[in-house]
């Protein structure tokens, strides 16, 4: 597919043509000036080479017309390039209406992407051809940057705010995407593939099962981090939410003073309606996941939380009663 000496990246988005056209224009402009200056210098070097030891140049010290000329002409050319570039940029920054919105989260050193129907991908992005796609991007840690050379688009992913990036893929295929803002050790590995598919193919892919059949515990573990549960439910109890180590089967103290046994039902309720029963010492900060997770995912998450029974309980963290002895 690639020639041994590639010179131009593939064009696979609606903006790529525009960018390349401007690129060609600027290349030609620059070539013109390079050729001009190099030939002038070469000519002068030959024509005005020193012929005798005591020779001295002429007395010309300036020319106003020339000065004005090489002030105004470069200025005009610069304004043309500026204006052309600005038009492309404004178009690039202004997403059209009715886009396919995909959420993107960058973290050291992976991309987590989520389709509108909730289907998640890691370092992979599937998009339908011909559809306006908008990426809504946030970062969990440092500044990243989402860059698809074939689409000629890139945008920084900055912690603390959203940035958006839109494109319309024009050709089915697989294209690389990169992180192009330096983000630490494995910055260079933080990339993946954008797969552009026919709309029908995309729809099929979207509704299909993930295809990977793994056991519920590891699926749940993956979900636990993909849903960012792990950002609050830290294992050592220092997070904004209680540690889940050894909680299953035990009892926890609630904010209203009552206790509740941690079983499948309570876990399910806590995922879907977290504010119903708040563990003592914690704030009601968890968002309800009602409608956001499938039953299967709840099963997987519960399986994972069960598996944490074998983990040591945290030293600190409010609300966790001593593990009841009868549990064994």
């Amino acid at each position: 597919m690639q020639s041994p000496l590639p010179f131009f990246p593939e064009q696979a988005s609606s903006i790529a043509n525009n960018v390349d056209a401007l690129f060609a224009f600027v290349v030609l402009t620059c070539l013109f000036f390079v050729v001009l200056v190099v030939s002038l210098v070469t000519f002068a070097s030959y024509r005005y080479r020193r012929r005798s030891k005591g020779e001295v140049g002429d007395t010309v010290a300036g020319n106003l017309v020339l000065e004005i000329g090489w002030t105004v002409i470069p200025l005009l050319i610069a304004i043309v390039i500026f204006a052309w570039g600005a038009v492309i940029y404004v178009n690039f920054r202004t997403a059209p209406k009715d886009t396919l919105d995909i959420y993107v989260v960058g973290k050291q050193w992976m991309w987590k992407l989520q389709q509108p129907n909730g289907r998640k991908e890691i370092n992979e992005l599937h998009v339908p051809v011909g559809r306006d796609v908008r990426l809504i991007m946030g970062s969990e840690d440092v500044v990243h940057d989402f860059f698809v050379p074939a689409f000629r688009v890139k945008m920084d992913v900055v912690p603390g705010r959203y940035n958006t990036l839109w494109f319309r893929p024009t050709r089915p295929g697989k294209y690389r995407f990169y992180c192009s803002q330096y983000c630490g050790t494995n910055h260079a590995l933080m990339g993946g593939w954008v797969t552009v598919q026919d709309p029908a193919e995309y729809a099929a892919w979207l509704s299909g099962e993930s295809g990977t059949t793994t056991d519920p515990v590891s699926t749940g573990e993956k979900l636990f981090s993909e849903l960012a549960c792990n950002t609050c439910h830290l294992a050592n109890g220092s997070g904004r939410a209680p540690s889940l180590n050894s909680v299953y089967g035990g009892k926890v103290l609630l904010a209203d003073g009552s206790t509740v046994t941690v079983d499948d039902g309570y876990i399910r309720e806590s995922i879907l309606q977290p504010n119903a029963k708040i563990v003592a010492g914690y704030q009601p900060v968890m968002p309800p996941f009602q409608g956001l997770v499938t039953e299967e995912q709840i099963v997987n998450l519960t399986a994972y939380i069960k598996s944490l029974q074998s983990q040591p309980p945290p030293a600190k963290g409010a609300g966790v009663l001593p593990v009841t002895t009868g549990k064994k």
Partner: protein
Amino acid sequence: MDAQSTHATGPGLQLPEKSYLNETTGIRSWLLTVDHKRIALLYLVSVTFFFFVGGFFAMMIRLHLLTPSGYMLSPDTYNRMFTMHGVTMVFFFLIPSIPAILGNFLIPLMVGAKDLAFPKINLLSWYIYIIGGAFTLYSMISGGLDTGWTFYTPFSTVYSNSAVAPAVIGVFITGFSSILTGLNFLVTVHTMRAPGMTWFRLPIFVWSHYATSIVMILGTPVIAITLGLAAMERLFGLGFFNPAMGGDPILFQHLFWFYSHPAVYIMILPSMGVISELIPTFARKKIFGYEFVAAASLAIAVIGFLVWAHHMFLTGQSTYAAIAFSFLTFLVAVPSAIKTFAWVATLFGGSISFDTPMLYAFGFLGLFLVGGLTGLFLGALGLDIHIHDTYFVVAHFHYIMVGGAVMGYLGGLHFWWPKITGRLYPEWMARIAALILFVGFNLTFFPQFVLGYLGMPRRYHVYPPEFQVYNVMSTAGASILAIGYLAPMVYLTWAAFYGKVAGNNPWPATGLEWTTASPPPTENFHVTPVVTWEAYDFHNRPELELDVPRAPTLAPAHGDD
């Protein structure tokens, strides 16, 4: 020194008995000197040291990138290499190189003063530089630095596991060295000029250092406080740049580039100044449009302060701000164009010789042209979307900073070496080295333009295999480049002791510095000079013994005066 002077006696030329080099001796006389010429040499030694430290890191980077999967260094080591390469080269080589060495040595000579306005502050600036350098070196050996030379937050302040604090403090300290140098230059140019040395008789070298100093004194304090805040954030958890504490990483970028973009002009303006000396000297002709070239320097310094956010077009910056910053960026292109055309026009009607400094000047012209023009790509908003943070950027700024600034630096070093040491370097060796440099440079960095447009992001320790061909080319070029840099270091050092005695004005050139002895006496001029000639005037200077005039080829519109 005296023992060696028997080695080298040019035809009838003798080194002056007493010069700034031998008036006092002993290590103390150097370390406590307030003579601007000796301080320049102190800077020369220390800056060269940092250049080779940075060069070593560069070699490691290029060798590592020979293969796509990068077997040589671990990712963390690679990240440290490019970071320390950048930090060393930018803060400890490029920024002090021409101003602190050539500027320090030459500005008092060129304006006809006995010294800079504040000699003790000048020495202080060198010590500050050394202390800052020591902190940064300490960071390199105690865990290294892996933040990129841009120190972007929150990576540098929260996430990096490397020795960020000492490096940041080192750069912070070094900033004050730069501020003091700039302050000294500004005041010297204002109040220390010799009788008859009017503003419009100053060499362009002085004008461009004046412009550089403006950038140094107005920009450097901002990076100092910014890095100070970043260090506080890393050490004590101050939160201005940390989003987890409500701070804003983009604010850091604004403050950082407010200095670091103009800092590019700290690197290139002095180099332009050197070229503006070399071309008239070796074309034996007044620089074309003196006032325009001088004004262009100031324009670059001022407009250069209004463009910094073009490094941030893709951070989510406001579209309006991006358009404004892009437009201002294109305005900077104009004074650069004025200068380039002025240099070319100076050649016409001249009497051109091809001594080594002139070869460097030609090299500068070519490389600066490419570097400057590729800036148009990056300044154009639409193109920046694609090439931002790719190897295109890397190639572009190396063309400016290495192709432009270092070519100017080496050209200047060759040009003034006879003045600094009193001795000539071996001409043919120097010409070959200049040629090697030019070829090696282009082979190293031109392929990176292509890589960048193909989409290879910068700061990657591994890369897709389709990019390998260009990376191999680049590494091959870098090996040639390394020879090109080692050679001058060797023969210039040799020439300082054993070269042919140069005499006061070997080229000959018109500046005031060439009217005194080589090497100059400690007080620069035995008698305060009185300037009666315009800059670069070869015609009314009988003592230069130039007597074969060339007939004018362009109609003199506001020519001879």
